[in-house]
């Protein structure tokens, strides 16, 4: 494996914050994505509730006409 030229190893205390930063960025991106998907799921649920309400109204109307 070839490594960056002229790149001495950083001490652990200094390198640790960069490594933690990289992994935290990855986790934050994942969490943001999950939050966006949760919002989408909420919208789908709301739309489904609307459609269910419309279907129930139509059914009630039909039963009223039949009666």
């Amino acid at each position, binding site marked *: *494996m*070839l*490594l*960056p*030229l002229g*790149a*001495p*190893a*950083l*001490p*652990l205390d*200094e*390198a*640790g914050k*960069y*490594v933690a*930063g*990289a*992994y935290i*960025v*990855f986790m934050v*991106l994942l969490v943001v*994505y999950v939050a966006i*998907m949760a919002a*989408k*799921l909420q*919208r*789908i649920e709301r*739309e*489904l509730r*609307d*459609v269910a309400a*419309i*279907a129930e109204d*139509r059914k009630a109307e039909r039963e009223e006409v039949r009666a």
Partner: protein
Amino acid sequence: MYGKGLKPLSIATVAMLAVSLSLVFFYAPLDGDQGFIQKIFYLHVPLAIVALVGFVIGGVFAIAHLRTNNRKWDAYSYVAIHISVIFGVAVLITGSIWAKASWGHWWVWDEPTLVSFLIVFLLYATYYPFRYAIEDRDRQARYASVFAVTAGAFVPLNFMAVRMAQSLVHPRTFATAEGGMPGEMMLTFLCTLVAVGLLWTTLVKFELTAKSASGQVKRLRRALDAPAPSSTSRIAPEVS
């Protein structure tokens, strides 16, 4: 049924990510030159590989769309590119952090690997406004597929061009004249690559399932002659 198999896939992804992170921090040896900072490699490189492969897969789905004219493939292509762009953001940020720690700069413009990835990322970033600019859904899907095929073909060409470049500033991850990675590092790297690949697959499936659910609701609305909701996406393809 896009949600079929999503649960075991999600469990496998979480398990594989946990195993990979354990290997990265408790098993893989410290790199002799870079020390602890090299741990970023196990995240950055698999993300880059999966993002680039994802772009190519998006192109393959686009070919299937152009051949069959089935809108399902356009949705697959869109989602593959969408998730790969998100991974691309992670690649650029983790790469910048690694560059800062290794080279003392957040970005190095004379490094072909970095600049070529940025070019690929920016190319795919134009995919969204490109779709958004076309109102007709059929034309939008067709033109987006042509874009995905062209850009997907550019990715391996770009990769080969970079590999042929002579700069040795960027770390080479696989075997070179001086030999490859030690076994423990290679095993850890392969595990993280599989974990990130599984994550990409899970997110693609997750996104497709959400789009399918949304498409089913729209179908139901049409069947009931119900008014369409005010907020509908103009660029995201529908999945039925």
